[in-house]
């Protein structure tokens, strides 16, 4: 446990120093996106990995957060930064309502319902032109020219999110969540109010995803419904971040977020200009192949199956040493 604390301190220190060492705007940008995905992936993981309610609709909360921030500026006439205050609670509120409707359903049915709700939100944002600006989206002007404020804000969000989830999972709530994931009927028979705790899990998850959305609006200064409410770019990406890193682990989604964002950027920039241009079109294909590979061979993600990976490594090296115990 003590060793782990050192590792965490090292990660935090490294990420605090990163933008001071790497001055390139581009790499700072990539890391900002990765940190944002740490928030989204970890929140998705709280609901899906720990509570067992696989959501295909996290774009709803991301989009709500982003639109709350955007509409603060365009409709309410206040700074879009108010979105950082209002976006989270707004997403949590929507999350509560969606949970109230969708938690009547279980397992795959819940997953399906979240896709449907997500599509409804996307279509409404597209069609309700007078309020949301429709397909034109919302265009603002960035507050800071330097990336540094955004970087530290994203870092703060990511650490806060990980810390809160860590704290929640160590509390009674965490045990209830896992109990519901393992067997909802058994949990209920032991007196766990499954509906209430699933809703709580969803609300916390939606809150942080909404914050990430509000951050995205302020950072990118442009949103449109096809981006922030996108099934593929947000909802599915959140799932990929979770499963590649490892569902039901604290450090899985953060690792997954960095892997996915770096992979995406590597391909989008055609290996930083080293490979022919057509490579840039391959990134979604690579994501797909990665999903298939991970599900087939590392069903619990890189962090969840770390012992398995180590075993494979050491047996290849000829040592055959027993796998180190998982620490979480």
């Amino acid at each position: 446990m003590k060793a782990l604390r050192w590792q965490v301190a090292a990660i935090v220190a490294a990420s605090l120093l990163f933008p001071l060492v790497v001055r390139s705007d581009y790499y700072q940008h990539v890391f900002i996106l990765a940190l944002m995905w740490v928030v989204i992936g970890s929140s998705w993981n709280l609901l899906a990995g720990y509570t067992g309610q696989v959501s295909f609709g996290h774009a709803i909360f991301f989009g709500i957060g982003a639109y709350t921030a955007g509409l603060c500026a365009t409709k309410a006439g206040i700074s879009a930064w108010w979105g950082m205050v209002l976006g989270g609670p707004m997403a949590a509120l929507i999350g509560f309502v969606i949970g109230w409707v969708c938690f009547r359903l279980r397992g795959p049915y819940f997953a399906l319902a979240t896709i449907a709700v997500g599509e409804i939100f996307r279509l409404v944002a597209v069609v309700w032109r007078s309020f949301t600006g429709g397909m034109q989206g919302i265009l603002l002007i960035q507050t800071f020219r330097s990336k540094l404020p955004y970087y530290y804000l994203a870092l703060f969000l990511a650490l806060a999110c990980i810390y809160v989830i860590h704290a929640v999972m160590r509390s009674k709530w965490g045990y209830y969540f896992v109990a519901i994931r393992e067997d909802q009927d058994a949990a209920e028979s032991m007196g766990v109010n499954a509906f209430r705790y699933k809703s709580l899990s969803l609300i916390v998850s939606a809150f942080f995803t909404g914050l990430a959305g509000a951050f995205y609006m302020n950072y990118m200064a442009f949103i449109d419904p096809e981006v922030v409410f996108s099934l593929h770019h947000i909802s599915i990406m959140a799932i990929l971040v979770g499963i590649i890193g490892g569902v039901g682990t604290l450090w899985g989604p953060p690792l997954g977020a960095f892997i996915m964002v770096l992979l995406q950027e590597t391909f989008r920039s055609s290996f930083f200009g080293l490979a022919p241009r057509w490579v840039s079109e391959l990134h979604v294909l690579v994501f797909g192949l990665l999903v298939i590979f991970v599900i087939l061979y590392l069903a619990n993600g890189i962090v969840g199956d770390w012992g398995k990976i180590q075993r494979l490594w050491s047996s290849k090296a000829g040592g055959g040493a027993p796998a180190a115990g998982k620490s979480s």
Partner: protein
Amino acid sequence: MAVFIQTVVAGILMGGIYALIGIGMTLIMGVMKIINLAHGQLMMVAMYITYVLYEHVHLDPYAALLITMPCLFVLGAVLQRYLLNPLIKVESILPENQVLMTVGIGMVLTELARMIFHSDYKSVRPPYTSMSLYAGSIAFNLPMVIAFGIAVLLTIGLFLFLLKTDVGKSVRATAQNKEAALLLGVNAERITIFTYGLGAALVAAAGTLLLPIYYLFPDLGGAFTLKAFVITILGGLGSTVGAIVGGVVLGVSESLGATYISMALKDAVGMVIFLLVLIFLPGGLKRLTKI
């Protein structure tokens, strides 16, 4: 009134094709208990095959059915055999990993199509696509009528197959109770492979029939995957009769929505029905009919 009838007629004709999509999905759902989120993407693959055959060999889209259906059957069987079946043995926290696998398959299929054919819209327009039959003032678009007819024939054929043949009976037995079917000597693994192939072949037929009245681009798959499970949920999971009714209901309500609400919200109509059914009628129309 004429507008209303016309709208309903168009909806019912479309519903025939939707039913075909839904039956494929519901078969897979019934036997494997998974949601096939690559269903629309399989349809898209079949549509590209039809497109290539029409452009390069000048094969009529309806004749192309004889090629696309076997092709997709093989593709579906291979996917089930090598990607989905191995997952049954894998230990994982989330029980949904077969569903996530189909998401991955769907992404790969879409991106492969984009690599080969690029993102631009394609269409297949044999000369008869603009012809219509008239009954009074109501027009019946010819390719839609043909598509509806073929869809009905295929559905009847499928029912005969499921009810009368040994393989069909094994499929139904596996859907009803896998363990019992195993005990009675049904090779459940082979049945799952066969069923996924069959589902893929049915959706391939739907895609090929749809192509002369629709257009084609790689991302079309996702939209139809959504429609497919709206239909299945509407009809009740695993119920083939339900999928037919669900298909027609979706077709008619989309058509009414497009005429009376707004073209842009046409797709939202399906989603709203879907949510209402999930909330107020879980189990779908199957619950009402007891079939």
